[in-house]
């Protein structure tokens, strides 16, 4: 069993050999990834079932399909993404070649979370591979079956010198962080995010941090309550609430609440039947620690529906809490579970003020048929992403960047953005050796005549053409 030092050294050697530079190599790896997903779907679904009791329907769509789509997107677009970007030239650079070259950083470290243990570690990995890096994956020890499966499968499909999976917990991660990486991509909680960034600072390693937050959801009186209830409930209780962009809490007026709660109750019965614990379509809480944490939050406010728990089964019923106050425990941390608190507000201004009192979340949601309301909330708040009249969808469109801001993180990925995240954009200028008479204008001894010519050709006019010094 190689030590982390040996693994890191092996990958660095492979990177330095230039192996990952060609499109052919990268495409081969990406196609192998696709085969990995196709040929092992059964095993993946089983691992997810063991870790999170994830229903196959959810696993197929949110883990397998999602990852396959990212891979295909990369395969289809790789050549385009790899092309140098030629830039607008100026008067004096007409004979030169100016472009931006995309280069891999080197050896990347990707640390994954446990809630979507396949997708959330493989999606950034695809970006790293497409961009020509070598990479170490460190999947979460909290989802051991999925992580173990990844560590078995990856070496069977991908180049072992360039890519490796290191499993383990705090000890192994700490060891890894002592090595120098050229990029670190972390998905997880804020507290560990800070530890990662501190370790990265030692080596001046750039980082992407995909962290959590309390994603607010404002529900306006103009919306279709039934559709709204369906969409919010779906997003909240998917994966037993363990989704970083699920709506964390709802803000609405008392009047809206009086319609929303019954709609939610109906909807929950539609989704999971009269006894949700018996439904095959509900996952489970990942472990005892989180179960206990969530159980303690159930005492905030009043239970409108749900509230049942079963410790042995790691089950908490889909729960809606009402009469929740800003100071309640359930409002102090990211819930990350099947609990939806509803906080009463008087009007939209109070809702916006409430949202702005808290750290910028990963996502922000508004339900309203009134476009003015949607635009109002959008303009007066900030968040990683935004969606009106639905939740989670902003993550699923690859042409949109996915990432946080402020406490919810830094950096963005998905589709082309993943490729860009793991690439260095190197400004290149290939000058001609000629035109020395013009170059000579800038040399000493300095004369005001030369200065005037340079200034004249250099000056950018307001709303005019771009010129520059030679």
């Amino acid at each position, binding site marked *: 069993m190689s030590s982390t030092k040996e693994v890191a050294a092996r990958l660095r050697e492979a990177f330095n050999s230039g192996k990952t530079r060609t499109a052919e190599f990268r495409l081969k790896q990406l196609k192998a990834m696709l085969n990995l997903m196709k040929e092992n779907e059964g095993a993946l679904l089983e691992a997810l079932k063991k870790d999170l009791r994830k229903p196959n329907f959810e696993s197929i769509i949110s883990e397998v399909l999602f990852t396959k789509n990212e891979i*295909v997107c990369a395969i289809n677009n790789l050549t385009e993404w790899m092309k140098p970007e030629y830039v607008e030239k100026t008067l004096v650079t007409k004979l030169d070649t100016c472009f931006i070259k995309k280069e891999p950083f080197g050896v990347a470290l990707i640390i994954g979370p446990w809630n979507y243990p396949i997708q959330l570690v493989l999606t950034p990995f695809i970006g790293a591979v497409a961009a020509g890096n070598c990479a170490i994956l460190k999947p979460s020890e909290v989802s051991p079956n999925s992580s173990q499966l990844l560590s078995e499968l990856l070496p069977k499909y991908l180049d072992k010198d360039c890519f490796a999976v290191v499993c383990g917990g705090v000890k192994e991660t700490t060891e890894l962080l002592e090595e120098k990486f050229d990029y670190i991509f972390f998905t997880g909680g804020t507290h560990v995010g800070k530890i990662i960034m501190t370790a990265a600072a030692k080596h001046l390693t750039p980082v992407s941090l995909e962290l959590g937050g309390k994603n607010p959801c404002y529900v306006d009186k103009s919306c279709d309550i039934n559709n709204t209830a369906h969409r919010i409930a779906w997003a909240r209780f998917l994966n037993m609430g363990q989704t970083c962009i699920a709506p964390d809490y709802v803000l609405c007026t008392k009047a809206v609440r009086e319609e929303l709660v019954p709609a939610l109750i109906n909807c929950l019965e539609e989704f999971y039947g009269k006894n949700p614990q018996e439904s095959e379509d509900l996952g489970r809480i990942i472990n005892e620690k989180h179960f206990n944490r969530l159980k303690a939050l159930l005492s905030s406010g009043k239970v409108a529906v749900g509230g049942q728990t079963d410790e042995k089964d790691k089950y908490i019923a889909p729960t809606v809490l009402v009469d929740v106050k800003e100071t309640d425990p359930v409002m102090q941390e990211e819930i990350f579970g099947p609990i939806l608190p509803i906080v009463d507000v008087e009007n939209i201004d109070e809702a916006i003020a409430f949202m702005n009192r808290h750290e910028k979340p990963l996502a922000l949601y508004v339900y309203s048929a009134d476009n003015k309301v949607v635009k109002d909330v959008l303009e007066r708040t900030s968040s990683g992403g935004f969606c009106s009249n639905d939740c989670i969808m902003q993550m699923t469109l690859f042409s949109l960047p*996915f990432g946080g801001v402020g406490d919810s993180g830094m950096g963005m990925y998905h589709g082309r953005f993943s490729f860009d995240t793991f690439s*260095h954009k190197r400004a290149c200028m290939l000058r001609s050796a000629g035109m020395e008479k013009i170059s000579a204008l800038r040399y000493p001894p300095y004369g005001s005549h030369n200065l005037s010519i340079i200034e004249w050709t250099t000056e950018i006019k307001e709303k005019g053409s771009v010129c520059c010094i030679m």
Partner: protein
Amino acid sequence: MLENNESQFLKALQHDLHKPKFEALLSEIAVIKNEAIYAANNLEEWMEPEYVEKTLSTALDECYVLKEPLGVVLVIGHWSFPLQLCLIPFIGAVSAGNCVVVRPSETASNTAELLQNLLPKYLDNECYHVIYGGHKDAQNDLSDLLQHKFDHVFYTGDATTGKLVMQAATKFLTPVTLVLAGKNPCYIDRNCDIYMAARRIAWARFVNAGQNLLAPDYVLCHADVHDKLLKELYTCVTEFYGEAPEKSPDFGRLVSIEHYQKLKELLGCGKLFIGGKSDEGIKYIAPTILLDVKENDPIMEKDIFGPVLPIIKVCALEEAINIIRKREKPLAVYVYSSNFKVISEVMSRTSSGCFCSNDSGMQNMFLTLPFGGVGGSGMGCCHGKYGFDTFSHRRACILRNIGIECVTYLRYPPYVDKNLSLILWASSLSRRSSGWCQIS
């Protein structure tokens, strides 16, 4: 502000760095003015939301990326180009809609003081502020400042302080941009216009008395053209600064005694070819070229940042590339050659913030190219639109319709195979046509 107070700025730069008026006007004043006008010309376009390609399921939605300011940002300048290195990122931050705290380098005290006096007269005092503590303990000052929460920190300077800045930023999960000095190598190939190369290299090395992040730090010269290069360098240094450069009005001075002393120590490496004269009283070190420098000499340990150019003789391109690759990725890599294959080889087998062939120091003057480092030379970039982007958050937005429920129901429990098949089918359809897809 720049136009109305040009002469005052020039005077301050003279006092701080003995910066010749020609250099100050072009490399400080003109460059900043261009950046500001470019931003003003393009601001509306940059601020517009970017509509993105949609898929089957989002066909009826509005999908776009909104650019938002980050909040209150901190720009820390550097003394080598005390105006440009804090005002150019400042312009990026302002155009992106942020409030900005600017901390010019206290080492260039005259310029910093002037900026502190003038900025409030031209810009909104509630939104923009210059912090200048005078000539106190710089590092402690900076640590104190970084105890406060900023939404982005932009730092230009050395790697050691860069690490401290990033470390401090961790407290609030503040993203950082670091532009750090490094050793920029310059390879001279045996197929090369030596006359041109000597002039461009000498200009780039000795401008601002060598105190330039993008200056070629050391030369790797092919043995075949080594002697020719020396001859041309000798000629052009004399052409530029005369027989007694300390008398030339066109040659700068070192910013401080401390910096002067650090550089003086390096003069003992290798063999002196040109220059070597120094005068502590006027913080002057002559334009100096050192030969027969070895890879492990003290002068090769960290960035020189002064008017001293070591030349290392190499026998082949391969040797040069190996020397470059052994070190931290610098801010720039330069190659002088008339053989495109050589240029291509160096470009593809090295990495750096930026790259330029057959010239030095020019590539950051273009607003359409990003200016920034990689690895040991930093992270992030600025100039032109890149400045605007650095200080913006790109917020992904989807505006959906609440009335239409015809497709969304497919994803709800109770989960049935029929719905799953439909979703998978729709997904593969999108994939074939547009190259990617998403869950519906």
